[in-house]
């Protein structure tokens, strides 16, 4: 009798199957796959263009120089794209699963429902865009004459991953509102809008309610700024990275708690 595979191996093999499905799905519409990469790339170029125009008229925003901001935009784009690769479609599809009653099938699978719902589809094109964002960051780094230590790079990467988990936790939290209202998709896309401010240098924001809300409630001002500040030696105090990690833990815990409460409410729409 073969021994029962370990839990981790089982989840890995399921996840592998999900990847395979995603690849097959994307390859069914190759032109469309490529066009989406073009679209995302275009919006990225557009953001960079905006910075280019701003710096025609000024040589610094607060204490941020042009290439530092370019690096920030690269980092913001990279974080957003990796988040998009793993989670975005799945978060926005949650309301559809609930509305159509397909959630039933998800819950019947012999696997953690949140795992399945969160990771069902992979957006492969987003990895390409994340790659181009890293390219821009490297170029900006060269313009700045940076030579970050291994520790700085590892720290920035770790904080970037932390930022992705914050995005995931918060967006999933918003998506679980679908258990209460069918209009949750609008909220999810609203959150997506907020990515725009994550690409702005933090010194643009003076102390005030705006800065407080987007630091302590929806930490948009932290997610890209903190990793970049580690990379470019701008980090003055350790509290910002610590805050980012703490926010990730709190957000993940909150989204799990709300998810469990919401599941109890689920009453299957179609049957």
């Amino acid at each position, binding site marked *: 009798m073969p021994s029962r595979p370990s839990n981790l191996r089982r989840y890995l093999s399921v996840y592998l199957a999900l990847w395979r499905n995603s690849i097959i799905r994307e390859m069914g519409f190759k032109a469309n796959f490529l066009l*989406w990469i073009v679209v995302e790339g*275009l919006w990225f170029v*557009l953001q960079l263009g905006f910075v280019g*125009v701003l710096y025609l008229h*000024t040589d610094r925003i607060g204490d941020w120089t042009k290439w530092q901001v370019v690096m920030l935009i690269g980092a913001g784009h990279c974080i957003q794209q990796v988040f998009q690769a793993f989670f975005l479609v799945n978060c926005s599809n949650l309301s559809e699963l609930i509305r159509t009653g397909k959630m039933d099938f998800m819950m019947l699978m012999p696997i953690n429902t949140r795992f399945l719902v969160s990771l069902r589809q992979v957006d492969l094109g987003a990895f390409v865009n994340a790659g181009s964002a890293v390219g821009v960051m490297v170029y900006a780094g060269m313009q700045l004459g940076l030579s970050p230590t291994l520790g700085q790079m590892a720290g920035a990467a770790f904080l970037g991953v932390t930022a992705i988990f914050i995005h995931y936790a918060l967006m999933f939290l918003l998506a679980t509102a679908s258990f209460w209202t069918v209009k949750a998709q609008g909220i999810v896309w609203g959150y997506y809008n907020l990515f725009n401010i994550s690409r702005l240098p933090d*010194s643009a924001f003076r102390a005030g309610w705006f800065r407080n809300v987007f630091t302590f409630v929806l930490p948009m001002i932290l997610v890209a700024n903190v990793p970049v500040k580690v990379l470019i030696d701008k980090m003055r105090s350790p509290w910002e990275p610590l805050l980012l990690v703490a926010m990730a833990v709190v957000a993940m815990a909150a989204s799990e708690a709300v998810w469990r409460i919401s599941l109890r409410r689920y009453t299957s729409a179609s049957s």
Partner: protein
Amino acid sequence: MAKYWHVILIGMQNTLSYRVNFLFRALFSLVPLMGTIYLWRRIYEDKGEDGEVAGYTLAAMTSYYLLVTVVDALTAVNEDDWQIAADIKDGNISQFLLKPIDYLSYRFCLFLSGRLIYMMVAIVPVGLFIWSLRSYFVVPSDAATFGWFVLSMVMTALLQFLMSYTMALLAFWVLEVSTFIFIVFAFEYIAGGHLFPLNILPPLVQRVLELTPFPYQLFFPVSIYLGQTTGDALTRGLVIQAFWTVGFYGIARFAWSRGIKKYSAVGG
């Protein structure tokens, strides 16, 4: 004509069920806008008391973004292009081929009703936003300026609608039009003046942009309102805007007549 009134009324009832979505949309779109305004404030701070960027004081710059918000709320297409593409893809337009109703006019009525409802919902968040920045909100120098602004804005709305309509008709030929819609939207976003006023660009770039229809989708009416476009430039601009509007009407009609020949009523 009466039947189109009914379309408008039904459209309003349908869109009313999206009111919460509209509210969120209006609210969330203000946040990046505020981010941009903060960014400019910081830039002006370092320029000193009466610093200018390409002729814009901080007040004028803020005013620009406020007007962009207003014109955008009044004229931008919402879901119209997705719906038209879906109608074609799912074979829903078959019914219009059998009825004495013109699809373009029908969609235009729905666009109007969508805008009306959006305005009614967005007036609260947008109104509060403008109120909070009221010291920057300028009024046009005279009634004539305001009149030209309204005329230009009407054409902007028509142009927005007709361009989206034409793009959506691509669904006759390609399976997935959303990428094309997003690509055009990206150009509109930067070349229309959503992100920054076009006249802070280098003159050569401005001249190239003026050859495209994008500035007439937003920037042009705003520049009239702010008194930047006057005299000959105003007349010329209005003529060009009218030219684009009529031009896209022609393209839309042409694309429809070609598309309908290719249409195979999938699922209809």
